[in-house]
């Protein structure tokens, strides 16, 4: 991804100017932000790992997790990374129609994932796992909730991008804007791989 960035960073007329590193300011800033996000999720994941086995009341993790269901929604989220790549590629070819198409599909896949999460939370709640039930409950909802909020913010960014592209309201480099949202989106997906493995797949 970084190599592509260097190759395509300066091909547009407006807004491109030489920087000391060769990376554009916006892209460098996005990488820095994602680096910072790693520590945010690091803290949340550590909290969950510390508390996952501590259940004084309410259900245990392995009593309520529905692995096949969550595997499907994880697959949907991972597929959205593929469609995001296609959107970035279309944007670099300056193909607005396909850019918007793929961005919309990405947002829909993301929304499917968030919908699955809402369903899952509701089901867990009915089975007796509230936010305040146990340490497991508090830390599970906080970790996955933070991730869900990140996906939701990503969906808003994708939809805003679609709206702004179709009305031609993107200031600066259009392809780069799509790519930056893409970086964020891939990051959120990668974090989910870690969360899915640690929270759902490794038995407590």
């Amino acid at each position, binding site marked *: 991804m970084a190599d592509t960035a260097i190759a395509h960073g300066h091909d547009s007329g407006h*807004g491109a*100017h030489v*920087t*000391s*590193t060769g*990376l554009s*300011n*916006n892209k*460098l*800033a996005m990488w*820095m*932000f994602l*680096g*910072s*996000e*790693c*520590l*945010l999720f*690091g*803290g*949340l994941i550590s*909290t969950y790992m*510390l*508390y996952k086995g*501590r259940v*004084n009341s309410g259900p245990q993790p392995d009593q309520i997790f529905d692995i096949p269901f969550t595997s499907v929604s994880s697959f949907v989220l991972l597929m959205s990374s593929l469609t995001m790549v296609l959107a970035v590629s279309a944007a670099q070819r300056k193909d607005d129609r396909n850019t918007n198409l793929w961005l919309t599909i990405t947002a829909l896949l993301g929304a499917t994932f968030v919908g699955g999460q809402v369903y899952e939370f509701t089901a867990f709640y009915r089975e007796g796992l509230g*936010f*305040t039930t*146990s*340490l497991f*409950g*508090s*830390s599970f909802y*906080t970790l996955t909730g933070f991730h869900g909020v990140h996906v939701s913010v990503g969906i808003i960014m994708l939809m*805003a991008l679609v709206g*702004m592209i179709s009305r031609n*309201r993107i*200031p*600066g480099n259009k392809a780069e804007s799509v790519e930056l949202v893409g970086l964020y989106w891939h990051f959120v997906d990668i974090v989910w791989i870690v969360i899915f493995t640690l929270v759902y797949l490794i038995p407590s």
Partner: protein
Amino acid sequence: MAIIERPSSEVAIAGGSTVGVKPSEALGVFKRPAASTSWRDWIVTVDHKKLGIMYGVAAFFFFIVGGLEAVLIRMQLIAPNGKVLNADQYNQMFTMHATTMVFLFVMPMAAAFANYFVPLQIGARDVAFPRINAFGFWCFLFGGIFLNTAWFLGGAADGGWFMYAPNSSTLFSPSHGIDFWSMGLQITGIASLTGAINLIVTILNMRAPGMKMMRMPIFTWMVLVVQFLLLFAIPVITVALFLLTFQRSFDATFFDVASGADPLLWQHLFWIFGHPEVYILILPSFGIVSEILPVFSKKPLFGYPIVAMSGAAIGFVGWGVWAHHMFASGLGPVSVTVFSMATMAIAVPTGVKIVNWVMTMWGGKLQFTVPMLFSIALVVQFTIGGLSGVTHAVAPSDTQQTDTYYIVAHFHYVLFGGAIFGLFAGFYYWWPKMFRKQLSESLGRWNFWLMVVGMNMTFGPMHMLGLQGQPRRMSVWTEARAGEGFFNLGFWNRISSIGSLVLSLGVLLFIINVVYTHKSKKVAIAPLDPWDGRTLEWMTDSPPKEHNFDTIPTINNLDEFFHRKYAQDATTHEITQVATAEEVLAEMNAHPDEHIHMPSRSYWPILLALALPIIGYGLIYNRVILAVGVAMVVATMFGWAMEPSTAADDDFDPPAPGDGGGHTKELAPLG
């Protein structure tokens, strides 16, 4: 010729003149604010120099607030059974004193210097993201005000600045103080995080041609290290603060021992942030004195690459020492040993810096100006604080000292004697650059000596108090247990309290000095290069123009400005002056860049920042207010996103007669 061509619609529309150009209205909801000299300009400005000054003024205001809190604490302890504050007020006072000094004075004051001088030192015209820069300032200001409104709304936070769980739960602290604390720090955290990203990108990406990393002034280096520390430390405290907020507002169980929670979780999260934080506080001051000592020793900095790299080493090792704050919590022998060793190891790069400063002064033609005095005082006082710090690295000794005044003595020596002396050195050194007037040296000497004497009187006795066993955070001490003779607690408490008044007098003299310098007609305009400076920020006007440099200089040397003023004879190695500062500047300005695009002013940063405390009040009091705050965030973010960071090209470059046109030089950043 005018080299900045920017939208000036106000003039054009008001005066009915035809030459004015309209700012870009195409994409914004508001018309873009145009240049003006009124107070409104400070609201909408994105100029890094103005924001630097605003950071400085606001941080100094909080310094006075935090200082008054400290004086109240000392007045409470001046005599046995103090009656100035009750126990509850005392708890709030020491909590808010520390919070204010750390988050609302030292950090933003370092941000003030970083904002003002980093672009100048690397030869840039502004930071990478000017609007985000403005947003960061407003977040800090509104977050700080939000935090302090707790005083008037049922009491401020009272759990100590590290707010240990479960003492921070609603059971032990039923007022809203800690809610204000956690959300206020969340907001100032946004300021730090956005500032960190902004300055990292600025330093990495916007250096002038030839300004390699190893030619950057050392202050810029230290700022870079600090911003990386912030980038990775702030999200950890963010997690901790979220857990605390969820616990207090939504009954989560994170720190509820009855549900099986581990109170050490908070301690780990807090100190993983908290220890890098102490380097965040001190490294900018290290950078400032590393600029000042060479200038007044008339020698280059001894071992420049070593100073830069030891700063980076402190940054790295600083991540592996956090548990030395927790030696008394029963971590187990392995953890204690590891963190003990790591803590001793971090003394090495710190000691390297001290050696470098001393060697810089060694054999130099020392000039004892006020900035130099403060810098030397930093070296001395920080060394004392550093030595008592090493005693904390030794776990058995630390267990004895934990939660006593010895700890208080240690961190005030490194933070007051280190960080704050460095900031004062910076005030005196850079004042003529920022305001064209030099602060009075004679008043400055009074200011300096009162602060040094006051500081040692206040914090020196605390070593003895602590080793005698006086615990910190106790609202009273009693004569019955005060001890005898030389080790009488009462005597040393009294000395310490009187010292705090001397210290306050010193700070007051600084304020008097500022007022005197700017009101008195006797103070002349400072020369362009009053200290015979070495770095790039002196190679432009004082104060710098809005675009900093008429021509972006090409850098060939470390200490570029020095090398333009002085030359060394090849055979005799004699250094002679070949040009004055004025000549260097005149030569640079002979062929100014044309068509400099500076970023346009914007309303969005202040509006977005304003929404954050509204969310905070909403979470504490009322869900309707919360909804309003969230709606404001969404709306302002879209407004921001759709506003181009610079006005359209047509606004900048009106077709002028004789202008060839077409070759626009876009030197200002976008973002």
